[in-house]
C-alpha cells in the first residue's frame, strides 16, 4: 500500500502529532502483513521531530529486517535523506537500550489491561 505524507501534513511535515498518524498507518499495514511505500512527494519541508514520530518509532515495534523488507520511503531529496538516516541511526541505537525496551513493554501492558 502507499501512504501519502502530503495528504496528512500538507507541504510541511513538521508536527509530531501528524508523524504519529503516519506511524499508525504504517504500523497497521505491517501488522496486516502488507508492504508500505511512504511517499513524501509534494512535501517541501521535513524536520526530525516529524521523522522521529513517523519513521524512527517503527524501530521500537519491528525488527530492522522486517522494516527493510516491508517499508520503503520515497520522494525525499538528498538533504532530507541525510536527515532520515540520522533519525534511523538514532532510533536503532535508542530502541536497543534495555531501559527503552522496558518502558515500551510497560506501555503495551497498560494498553492491553
Amino acid at each position: 500500500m502507499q501512504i501519502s505524507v502530503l495528504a496528512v501534513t500538507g507541504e510541511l511535515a513538521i508536527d509530531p502529532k501528524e508523524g504519529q498518524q503516519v506511524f499508525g498507518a504504517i504500523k497497521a499495514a505491517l501488522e496486516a502483513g502488507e508492504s508500505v511505500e511512504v511517499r513524501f512527494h509534494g512535501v517541501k519541508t521535513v524536520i526530525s521531530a516529524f521523522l522521529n514520530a513517523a519513521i524512527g518509532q517503527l524501530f521500537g515495534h519491528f525488527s530492522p529486517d522486517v522494516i527493510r523488507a516491508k517499508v520503503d520511503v520515497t520522494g525525499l531529496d538528498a538533504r532530507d535523506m541525510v536527515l532520515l538516516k540520522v533519525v534511523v541511526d538514532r532510533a536503532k541505537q535508542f530502541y536497543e537500550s534495555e531501559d527503552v525496551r522496558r518502558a515500551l513493554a510497560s506501555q503495551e501492558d497498560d494498553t492491553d489491561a
Partner: protein
Amino acid sequence: MGRAGAVTMAGCSYSFAGSVGSDSSGYGQLAAAANVGRLVAETVDLDFSRTSFFDANLAAPLGVVVHHLLRAGPAAISGLSGAVRAILDKNGFTAKVLGAPRRIDTHGTTIRYERFGLAEYPAFVQYFRHTVSSHGGLATVPLPNMREIEAAILEIFLNAAIHSDSEPGIFVCGQFFPHKNRLDFTIADSGIGFAGSLAKRYNQMFPDEEAVRLVIVQGYTSKIAITGGTGLRQVHEYLVATGGRLQIVSGESMWQLSRRPGWTPARLGSRFPGTIVNIEFNTLTPPRPPAPVGSFREMF
C-alpha cells in the same frame, strides 16, 4: 552588570546597565531582572535609563522576564530612550508589551517580536514565512541556506513547544545584519528548562549545565517511547559547518557553540526562568552538499 533590588518609592527596580548583548553578561542581566525580590503587590520596574545598547533579538527573553514578573505582581518598564527605545519600537516589542505604536523600520533589518501559544505552530509557520522567508533584506540569501534556516528554526520552535511546558507560550524575535551576512533569531520560553524536561523522563534532577550537555552531546531525550534529541544536534552540526553560532541558556547556565573553540559553558549568576535558544546564522556560507546515503533500505 545591572543593578538589582534597588528600592524606590514605587517599589523595586532592576537597572539594565551599559550594553546588553547576546552573551553571558547580557543573559545574566535578564536572569537577574527576573529574580528581583519584592514585597507583596510591589511593582517591579525594569529601568533602561542606564542602558546604552540592547540586542534586538533579546526582546524575546525580555518578554519572558516581563511575563514572569507579571505572574507574581505588577511590573513596569521605564527609562526607554534613544537607540534602545528605537530598536524595541521597530521590532514591535513596545507595541506588544506597552501598547506603543510600532515604528517603521526604514532599514528593514528587524524581525518582529511575537509570542505564540504552545499549540500555535501553524501560526508560527505563517509568521516565519511572512517575516523571515519573505523578508526583503534576506532576498539575497541563497535558497539552500534559507532552507536550512527554516528547518533549524522550526526544529527549535517545535522542541520548545513540545518540551517546555511554558504557560505563557513561546517568545521569538530576530535581527538581520546585511553587512555581516548574519541573521540572529532567538526563541525563548518560560518553562521547565532542559533539567526539568529530563527530570520528567529520568526521575533525576541534573544540574542545568549538565542537562544541556546530556541532550546536545550525549543525545539524551525526554521522551519515553520515541526518539528525540536529533533536532538540536542537526542544527548544531549545520552551524559548525557554516560558521554560525548557537547559544542555549537554561536555568542558571549558558552553553555556547561556535566553530572555535566548540562548546563552552558559562554561569549566569542568576536563574533565568526558562530557556533561551539564540541562533546566529551565517547567511552566505553554503551548507555542505549532502553525502549520498542511498535508499531507505540501504540505510541500515
